[in-house]
C-alpha cells in the first residue's frame, strides 16, 4: 500500500529526514516512535504534502502511484489522511460546511457525483456518534474555541467521514486525558479493516495500549534505527530512548 524508499527531506536547508525506508501493507498499523526532534512529525507532514519541506531524494509510492509530486488535496483524494498534531482553528467556516466541501471535492476527483444534503447529513451523524462528537460542535466554526480534546476528536471524526486508506496520526495522543484518549482510540480502531492502514506517530507508548500496532519503528536523527513488534514499545516505555541513542552512536 505504501512504500517509502530512501526518503530525504529538508526544511530551510536543514536535512531532517536522512533516508527513510518503510513498507506498509494493507490492514497494517505501524507505530513511529522516537525522541523529540527525531523527524517523526516531519515524516507525517512530508507524506501529507506540506510544502515547506523540500524532498531532496527518494520515492513514496502509494497504491501504485508516486505521490511526491502530487498536491496535498490530490493525496487526500487518493486516500491519505493526516490527523494534525495541532489542528488549525478556522473562524467563519463551520465544521459541517468544511467537511461537505471536502467530501464533495474528493468525490469529484474520483469522478463520483456529489452527495446531496440529506445523504451527507445522515452519514455525518453516524460518524459523529462513532467518536461521541456532539452535534453542536459540527455547527461551530472549525476548531475555533475547541478544547484540546475536542480538536483531536474532531480530527478522528473527519477521518471517519473521509474513510482514508492510509491514516497518519501525528501525536494524536498529546494533550489528551485518559477518557479522551480512549474515545479517540476507539474511533481509530473502529476504522481498522483489512484494506485500511495507519501510521501512528507518538512519543509515548500509552496510545499503543489502545491502538495496538503490528509494527513499531524507532526514528532517530532522521533514520529508522530499530524496528520490531509492539513489545518494542513496552521496552521503550520502560527504558527510555537513551539505550537506542547509545546503540546508534556505537555503530556510527
Amino acid at each position, binding site marked *: 500500500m505504501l512504500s517509502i524508499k530512501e526518503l530525504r527531506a529538508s526544511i530551510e536547508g536543514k536535512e531532517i529526514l536522512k533516508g527513510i525506508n518503510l513498507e506498509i501493507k494493507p490492514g497494517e498499523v505501524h507505530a513511529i516512535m522516537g525522541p523529540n526532534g527525531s523527524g517523526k512529525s516531519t515524516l507525517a507532514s512530508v507524506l*501529507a*504534502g*506540506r*510544502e515547506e519541506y523540500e524532498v531532496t531524494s527518494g520515492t513514496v509510492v502509494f497504491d501504485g502511484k508516486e505521490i511526491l509530486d502530487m*498536491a*496535498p*488535496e490530490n*493525496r*487526500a*483524494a487518493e486516500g491519505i*489522511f*493526516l490527523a*494534525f498534531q495541532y*489542528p*488549525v482553528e*478556522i*473562524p*467563519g*467556516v463551520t465544521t459541517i*460546511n*468544511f*467537511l461537505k*466541501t*471536502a*467530501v464533495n*471535492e*474528493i468525490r469529484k*476527483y474520483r469522478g463520483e457525483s456529489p452527495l446531496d444534503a440529506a445523504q451527507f447529513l445522515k452519514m455525518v451523524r453516524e460518524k459523529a456518534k462513532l467518536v461521541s462528537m456532539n452535534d453542536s460542535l459540527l455547527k461551530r*466554526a472549525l476548531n475555533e474555541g475547541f478544547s484540546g480534546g475536542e480538536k483531536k476528536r474532531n480530527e478522528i471524526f*473527519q477521518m471517519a467521514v*473521509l474513510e482514508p486508506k492510509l491514516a497518519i496520526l501525528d501525536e494524536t495522543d498529546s494533550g489528551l486525558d485518559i477518557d479522551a484518549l480512549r474515545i479517540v482510540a476507539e474511533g481509530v480502531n473502529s476504522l481498522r479493516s483489512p484494506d485500511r492502514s495507519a501510521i501512528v506517530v507518538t512519543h509515548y507508548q500509552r496510545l499503543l495500549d489502545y491502538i495496538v500496532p503490528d509494527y513499531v519503528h524507532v526514528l532517530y536523527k532522521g533514520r529508522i534505527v530499530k524496528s520490531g513488534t509492539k513489545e518494542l514499545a513496552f521496552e521503550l516505555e520502560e527504558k527510555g530512548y537513551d539505550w537506542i541513542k547509545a546503540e546508534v552512536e556505537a555503530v556510527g
Partner: protein
Amino acid sequence: MSNETIDLKTRLITDFYARESVMNGEASSAFHQKKRAALAEFDKLGFPTTRNEEWKYSNVKDLTSVLYNFNADSSITPADLEDLKIPSQEANILYFVNGHYKAELSVLVSSASQIIIDSLQEAYKKDPVLVNSYFNELMKDENDAFSALNTAFAHDGVFIHIPDNQTVEHPVILRFVSDARVQNVGSQPRNIIAVGRNAHVKVAEAYRTLGNERSFTNTVTEIFVSEDAGVEYYKVQNESENAYHIGTTKVKMLDRSQFYSGTVTLNGRFTRNNLNIILDGERCEAHMYGLYFPDGIQHVDNHTVADHRKPNSESNELYKGILRDRSKGVFNGKIFVRPDAQKTNAFQSCKNIVLSTEATMNTKPQLEIFADDVKCSHGTTTGQIDEEALFYMRSRGISRSEAMALLMFAFCADVISQIRIDSIREYLEGVIAEKLTSK
C-alpha cells in the same frame, strides 16, 4: 473656448451660474443661499490634491481630468434594470437614474403616516421650511470640496422623514443607477434622512452602473437620529470598471440612539467613502462595518469618523478588505473623544488580506482623546492568507482555489452577517461567492 481647455471645476462653476440665472425669485431663498455659499467654498477649495492630508493616498486627478454630462437623459427601461436587480423583497424601492428620481420605476409600500419618502425636489415643493431645516445642517462645516460641490448642485435625491415613535417595518432601498452607455455621466444625489424620537428604520443605498463610459457619482447623505431612535444604514457599491464614486454620509446622533452602518464596496474604478458620525448624546451606540474587494487597478478609500461629544456612549468599528492584483486600499479611522465625553467606549479594527505583491493597503487609525476616563482601542492588520489553514483544508481534499474561497468568504462573514436587510445580505453573499471563485 473649446471643450479641451475647459476644466471640470470651471465647467461646474459656469453651470451653476447658468442655472441660477433662470431661477427667478427662488434664487433668493434660504435654500439657494446655502447652495451659493457652498459653491463659493468649492471655488475656494478646488479639487483636492495628494498634498491634502485627507487625500494623501487617493489621487482624484484622473477623476477630474475629463468632463461629465450632469444632465444626461437616460432611455433606461425596466428591462435594462433586470440585470441589476437585487433579489426582491417587500420594500420601498426608489430608483434614481443619473441622479434623477424615476417615479415610474419606483415602488412605495409603507404608509405615509409611518414614513414620508419623497424625492428631494418634491419634498422641497411640498414643505420648503421642513426640508431647509435639515438641508446642509450637518455638512456646513465639512471644509470638503466634494461635499460643497454636492451642496451647490443639490437638486435630487431622497428626503425621508419618520415621525416620532414609528417603526418602519419595510426597508427603504435607494437604487442609484448611472447610465453610462453612451457618454460620460455625472450625478450628485443629495439625501436627507430625518428620524424622529423613538423611531426606527432601515435604509440602503445601492449603486450600479450600466455601460462602460465613465461615471462620476458625488453623493451626500445627511442622517439625523433623534433621541431613542434606531437607524440601520447600508451602502452597497457594485459599479463598473469606469465608475468614480465619492460619497459622504454624515450622521448626528442624540441621546440613547443607535446607528448601524454597513459599507460594502464590491466594484468600481475609484471609490472614496466618508462616514462621519457625531455622537452628540449620552448612551448612544454607533456601529460601523465595512468590506471592500478591489481587484485590477481599483482603488477603495474609506475614511470614517466617530466623534464622541457627550459621556457614556459607545462606538464600534470593523472594516475588512481583500485586495488583489494591483489594487489599492486606504483606511483612515478617526476617533475623537471630546473633553465632555467621559466614560466613552470606542473600538476600531481594520483587517486586510493582500493577495498580490503589487496590491497595497494604507491604514491609519487616528485617535484624539481629550477626556481621561475612557476605553479606546484600535488595531489594524494587513497580511496574507493563512498558509497553515490552507494546508489544513487541502489535506482534507479541498483544492487550493476552493480553500482560498472558503477562507476569504469566512473572512468576510462577520461583516456580511451584520447586514440585516435580508435581500441585500443574500445578494452580497451571492456576488461575493462568485467574485471569490472567479479567480
